[in-house]
């Protein structure tokens, strides 16, 4: 049957969940294979937590090194996120994340308890900033996409966490759509990309809060969606709850103004870049999103929510 979406695959990969829907049942098996293969390959090259990943094994001597086509695409996506946001999203925050205690898979971090006690989180100064936290800045990374040459400066740890996930959602959706002709939705850990024909009425997208409640259901008609949260990927460092979105300007987790921000973009990469930047910007986020005409729904830590003009108002329950 063509038209109504069917679930092609649901599985866990790269530390999160993946769900693939297609509008043509005959495309489901192929769609599942594409998604599983793509995420397996991504984990192998871009994981920050695998000792054998290409990302971890990169030289950090400031000299050009040739990287694989897949890592090259991931790097390009991460640097594009930095350009889109004027550096509010920065792939060189990896060292700061480690300094704040996020130095391994999150479940392992939590299992270790307070990271200052574990010795991984530097003792913070009076402002709450660990002694070593620093962000070299995305402009310190030199990269030539044509030759796939990447130069990582000494002391720089790259982290493509969010942008790589969004990039993967975009790539997988596009590939399934191109190879099968089916309408495709890829939900990769909350980053949603679509390709091909839209089902009647549009893709139904739920915006979920950290507690699991669906705040709103919206219709996807060609947009991609991403949500950044300060409430879920958290751990304890120096007896304070920390979250994973580093403000590159301070080297510390961004001030918690918003519980979460959801943005619609032309791609999941753009949506994710904007939602992450909004968390970093805090109170300045609404104006920044409006200036870029990005539809967005923002939920404050006080429970109040607001949306930009391109985002449908929430209906009374």
């Amino acid at each position, binding site marked *: 049957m063509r038209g109504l979406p069917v679930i092609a695959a649901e599985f866990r990969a790269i530390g999160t969940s993946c769900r693939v829907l297609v509008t043509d049942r005959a495309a489901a098996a192929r769609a599942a294979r594409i998604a599983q293969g793509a995420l397996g390959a991504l984990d192998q090259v871009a994981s920050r937590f695998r000792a054998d990943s290409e990302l971890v094994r990169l030289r950090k001597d400031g000299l050009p090194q040739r990287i694989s086509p897949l890592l090259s695409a991931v790097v390009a996506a991460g640097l594009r996120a930095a350009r889109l946001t004027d550096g509010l999203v920065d792939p060189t925050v990896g060292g700061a994340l480690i300094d704040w205690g996020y130095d391994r898979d999150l479940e392992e971090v939590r299992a270790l308890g307070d990271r200052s006690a574990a010795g991984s989180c530097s003792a913070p100064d009076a402002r709450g900033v660990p002694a070593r936290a620093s962000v070299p800045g995305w402009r310190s990374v030199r990269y*030539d996409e044509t030759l796939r*040459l990447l130069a990582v400066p000494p002391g720089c740890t790259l982290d493509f966490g969010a942008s790589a996930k969004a990039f993967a959602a975009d790539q997988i959706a596009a590939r399934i759509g191109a190879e099968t002709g089916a309408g495709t939705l890829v939900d990769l850990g909350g*980053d949603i990309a679509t390709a091909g024909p839209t089902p009647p009425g549009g893709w139904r997208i739920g915006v979920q809060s950290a507690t699991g409640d669906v705040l709103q259901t919206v*219709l996807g008609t060609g947009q991609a969606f991403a949500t950044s949260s300060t409430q879920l990927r958290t751990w304890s460092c120096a007896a304070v709850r920390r979250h994973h979105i580093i403000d590159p300007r301070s080297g510390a987790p961004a001030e918690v103004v918003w519980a979460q921000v959801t943005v619609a973009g032309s791609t999941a990469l753009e949506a994710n870049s904007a939602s992450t930047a909004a968390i970093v910007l805090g109170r300045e986020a609404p104006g920044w999103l409006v200036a870029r005409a*990005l*539809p967005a729904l923002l939920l404050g830590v006080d429970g109040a929510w607001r949306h930009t003009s391109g985002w449908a108002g929430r*209906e009374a329950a």
Partner: protein
Amino acid sequence: MIPIVRRTRNLTMTGMAVGTLLTGGLVGQLALHQHNAAGTTVPTDRPSASTSAPAGSQEQSGSEAQSGSKGDDSFNQVPPVQSGGNGGGVDGTTRGS
């Protein structure tokens, strides 16, 4: 002007590749700086090609401009997001991870 710039870039790309192969990076690094200096097609409000902009982005920007896209460094416009109403299932769930 454009063909000259492209020839210059191709030349520096070749130098960078050869340099990397021959010296493990030193000459390649030099070529990278040369590429930066030759990158006159990169608008001044963009970071230099050697620091971040993917090579070839200039060629892309021309076609994107024709299609109405804002280019590699700007967010593309998206249609407004409509409500899906209350109730009913969802195909995907956007959430923080």
